[in-house]
C-alpha cells in the first residue's frame, strides 16, 4: 500500500459551536468519543488503513489540545521519513496574513504544502464524523471514471434530506447539481463532506475561487457548483456503512450510545480496520465488590464502586459507592461522588460530580443553566474542570458553564480548576 501520489487534508479548524461547553477549550475533532477515542481518530485511522501516508491536519480554533494529540502522528503510524501527519495552522506571510476564511480557503492557503508533495489526487476530509471508510476504494472509482472530482454520498431517509447538502445525480452517478439543504429534495444522496479531487483541477478552482470576493470559499457552496458550471466530471461515490455526524450534543450522545446498542455496526473490534488512538498510560480498569456495570463501555484507569448502566466511560473515571450513572457519557478523569445520581449527562474532562447530586430527566423544571439551544432530549452537559456542589439538583437540558453569571444561591459550581 502506501501511496504517495495522494495527500489527505483533514479540515479540523472549526469551532463546533453546537457542542457548547465541550468545545470551549478544544477543537471539535479533539473531543473524546466512544470511551477510547477522539473524533479525529476516525479520519486519521481511515487514511492509514486506506494506505494514505501524507495527511495534513488543518487546525485553527483552540489548536493546543488537537496539536498535542496529533503530535508527530506516531499513534497512527504517521511518523514516516518522507510522509506523515502535518499540523497546518494558518500562518503569516509577507504582504498579508489571514485566518482560514472557509474550507476551500484553508486548502488554498496550504497549496504550497500540497504542491511540495506533488500528488495526483487530494482527499478532503472533515473532522466531525464517526465512520470507517476505505478511501482507496473511492479513489479507485475516481480513477476508473476519469473523474475530476468525486464526492462520497450517503443515502439518508427522504424526510431527513432537507437537513443535508444533497447531490442530484444521473443514472451513472455523475453529479449535475448540488443543493444545500433543499426544501424539496430531488434526491436523498447526502454529501458526506468527503471529496477526492484531481489536484490540477482543484488547484485551478481554488485560485479562481480565491479571486472572487463574493465567495464563501466553501467546498459545498462554491467549489462544487463552480466545477459543475465549468462542465467538469463529477461523480458520486456511494457509501453504505455506518456514518454519523457528531456535530451536536444530541448526535454526539446518540452516537456514543450506538457503541452499546449496536456494537456490530461500527464494529470497533475489527482488527482488519483498527481505529488507532493515543493510548493513555493507565492500568487496566477495576470493578469493586460493590460495583455493578451493565450494558456499558469502559477503558483503562476506570475505578467503579457504584452502579454504571448503559454508559460510555473514558479513561480514569471514578464512580464511588452508591453513585448511579445511567445513559451517560463521562470523559477522561470524571469523578462521580457517593450517592450522586446522574442520567443522560455528558461530563467533560475531570469534572467532579459532588455527593448526592441529582441530574437528568428525573429532575423537572428549569434553572439558570437551562439551555434549549444546545441541549435537547433531556441531555445535560457539564464543562470540564468543575467541582459541582454536593446535593445540587440539576434539571435536564442544562449546560453547566462556569461563564454563566448566576447568584451564589442558584450556582451549582463550587469551584473550577484547570485540566
Amino acid at each position: 500500500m502506501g501511496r504517495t501520489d495522494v495527500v489527505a487534508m483533514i479540515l479540523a479548524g472549526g469551532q463546533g459551536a453546537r457542542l457548547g461547553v465541550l468545545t470551549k477549550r478544544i477543537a471539535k475533532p479533539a473531543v473524546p468519543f466512544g470511551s477510547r477515542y477522539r473524533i479525529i481518530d476516525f479520519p486519521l485511522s481511515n487514511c492509514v488503513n486506506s494506505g494514505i501516508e501524507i495527511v495534513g491536519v488543518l487546525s485553527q480554533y483552540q489548536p493546543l489540545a488537537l496539536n498535542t494529540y496529533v503530535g508527530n502522528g506516531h499513534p497512527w503510524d504517521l511518523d514516516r521519513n518522507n510522509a506523515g501527519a502535518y499540523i497546518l495552522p494558518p500562518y503569516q506571510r509577507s504582504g498579508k496574513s489571514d485566518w482560514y476564511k472557509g474550507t476551500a480557503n484553508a486548502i488554498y492557503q496550504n497549496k504550497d504544502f500540497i504542491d511540495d508533495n506533488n500528488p495526483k489526487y487530494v482527499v478532503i476530509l472533515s473532522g466531525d464524523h464517526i465512520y470507517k471508510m476505505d478511501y482507496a476504494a473511492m479513489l479507485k472509482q475516481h480513477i476508473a471514471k476519469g473523474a475530476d472530482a468525486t464526492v462520497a454520498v450517503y443515502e439518508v431517509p427522504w424526510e431527513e434530506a432537507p437537513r443535508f447538502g444533497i447531490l442530484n445525480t444521473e443514472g451513472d452517478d455523475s453529479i449535475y447539481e448540488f443543493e444545500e439543504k433543499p426544501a424539496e429534495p430531488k434526491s436523498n444522496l447526502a454529501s458526506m463532506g468527503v471529496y477526492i479531487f484531481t489536484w490540477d483541477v482543484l488547484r485551478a478552482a481554488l485560485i479562481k475561487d480565491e479571486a472572487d470576493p463574493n465567495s464563501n470559499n466553501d467546498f459545498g457552496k462554491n467549489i462544487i457548483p463552480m466545477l459543475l458550471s465549468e462542465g467538469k466530471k463529477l461523480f458520486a461515490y456511494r457509501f453504505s456503512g455506518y456514518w454519523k455526524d457528531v456535530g451536536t450534543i444530541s448526535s454526539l450522545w446518540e452516537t456514543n450510545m450506538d457503541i452499546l446498542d449496536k456494537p456490530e455496526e461500527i464494529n470497533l473490534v475489527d482488527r482488519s480496520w483498527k481505529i488507532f488512538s493515543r493510548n493513555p498510560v493507565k492500568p487496566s480498569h477495576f470493578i469493586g465488590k460493590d460495583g455493578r456495570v451493565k450494558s456499558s463501555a469502559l477503558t483503562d484507569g476506570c475505578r467503579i464502586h457504584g452502579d454504571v448502566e448503559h454508559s460510555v466511560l473514558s479513561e480514569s473515571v471514578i464512580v464511588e459507592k452508591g453513585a448511579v450513572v445511567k445513559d451517560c457519557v463521562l470523559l477522561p478523569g470524571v469523578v462521580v461522588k457517593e450517592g450522586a445520581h446522574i442520567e443522560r449527562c455528558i461530563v467533560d474532562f475531570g469534572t467532579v460530580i459532588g455527593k448526592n447530586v441529582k441530574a437528568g430527566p428525573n429532575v423537572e423544571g428549569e434553572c439558570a443553566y437551562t439551555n434549549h439551544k444546545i441541549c435537547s432530549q433531556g441531555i445535560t452537559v457539564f464543562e470540564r474542570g468543575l467541582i459541582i456542589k454536593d446535593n445540587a439538583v440539576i434539571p435536564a437540558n442544562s449546560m453547566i458553564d462556569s461563564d454563566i453569571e448566576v447568584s451564589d444561591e442558584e450556582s451549582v459550581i463550587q469551584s473550577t480548576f484547570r485540566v
Partner: protein
Amino acid sequence: MFNNAMGLILADNKKITLGELSGPRALSAVPFAGRYRIIDFMLSNMVNSGIKNVGVLTYNKYKSLMDHLGTGAAWSLDRKNDGLHILPPYVNSEATNINGDEELAGVLDFLRTSRTTFVIVANSNVVLNTTFDDMIEAHEKSGADLTVMYNRDATKFGSPSYILDVDEDGFVKDMLYNPQKAASNKSSLGIICLRRDMLVDIISKQMSHGITHFGIHSMVKMFDELKVYAYEYAGVALRINSVQTYFNASMNLLNESVRDDLFWSGEPIYTKVKDEAPTLYFETSDVKNSILSDGCRIYGNVEDSIIFRSVTVSKNTTIKNCVVMQDAHISENCHLENVILDKNAFVRPGVRLVGHHDYPVVIGKGAGI
C-alpha cells in the same frame, strides 16, 4: 531525576520457571496485571529515574520479548543517543555454546561504550514501582562499592531467596541462599547499583577466572572483597518465583493498597500499546472485584479475577479467582475457578475446570479445551 546512570535488566532467570507460562517466553515477558509484561515495571522504573540507556540481557526464548519491546518507543527509549539495547547472546560459527562467555563479552561492550557513572542492574522476577534516585543517594552516602535493594519478605515467596545478614552500619556481612532457617527477614530484591567502571572490572575479572554467567547475587556474594551496602525498599514488591507466586501476585492486585502503590501513587508504568476497542459489558454480565483490560466482551460472570485484553466471557459462564490472558475465549456454560488461561486459549462450551487456590490449573498458550 538524574542522567548519571544506565540500566541493565536480566530478562530471564535460569533458576526460575513458571511452567507452561514461561515455556514459550522469557520470564520478563510473562504477561502480568492485565495489560503489562513483567519487564514493563523495571523498564518504567528506570525510565522514570531519568535513565536513558537500558540494556536487556537475554539468552534464549527472546522472540516475544523482542516483539514486546520493539524500538523501545513505548518507554521513550527510541533515542538517537543511548536508548534501548537488546543484548542477545553472541552466536558465531566458532562458539556455538550460547551459555559461554559470549554472554559476558556482550555485556562488557555495552557497558564500556556508555558514559554514565552508575549502573542499575536488576533481575526480572520482581514487580514494583519506584525510582532509583534514593537508592543511588544512599549508595554514595554510605561509601559502599555496591548497594543491594532488599525488603523484609524473608523466605515467604519460596526459592530462590537470598537472605541478607546486615551489620549495624547497614553493610552486608553474609548472604544465605534458600536457608532452612533465615538469619534475618531481609531478602534481596535482586536490584543493585554500583559504579560502571567497577562493574566492568568485576566482569573482566570474572571472565579471566572462567566464570561465564552474569548474576546479580554472585556480585552481592563478594561482600568479603567489596563494601556491599543494603538499602531497604518499603513499598510493595511482588516477587514472581513460581506459578504459585505468580498467581498470588496477581490476586494481590485486587487489594486496593497494592494497586495504589503500583499504579496510582508513583510514576506511570509504560507498556506497548495495542489500540484495542473499549471493553463492552452486556446486559447479562455480572462483574465483581476484578481487573479488566481493553477490548473484552463480557456477557457472563467474573469475580475476583484478572482479565487481560480482548478476552470473551460468554453467557452463563462463571470465572472466579482466575487469570485470563489476552485473546482467550471462554464459551457458554463454563465454570472456571483458580485457573490461569494463557494467551489465545479457547474453552469450549460447558467446560468445568476447578483448581485449588494454592495450586491453580494452568492452560497453556493457544490450547483448546
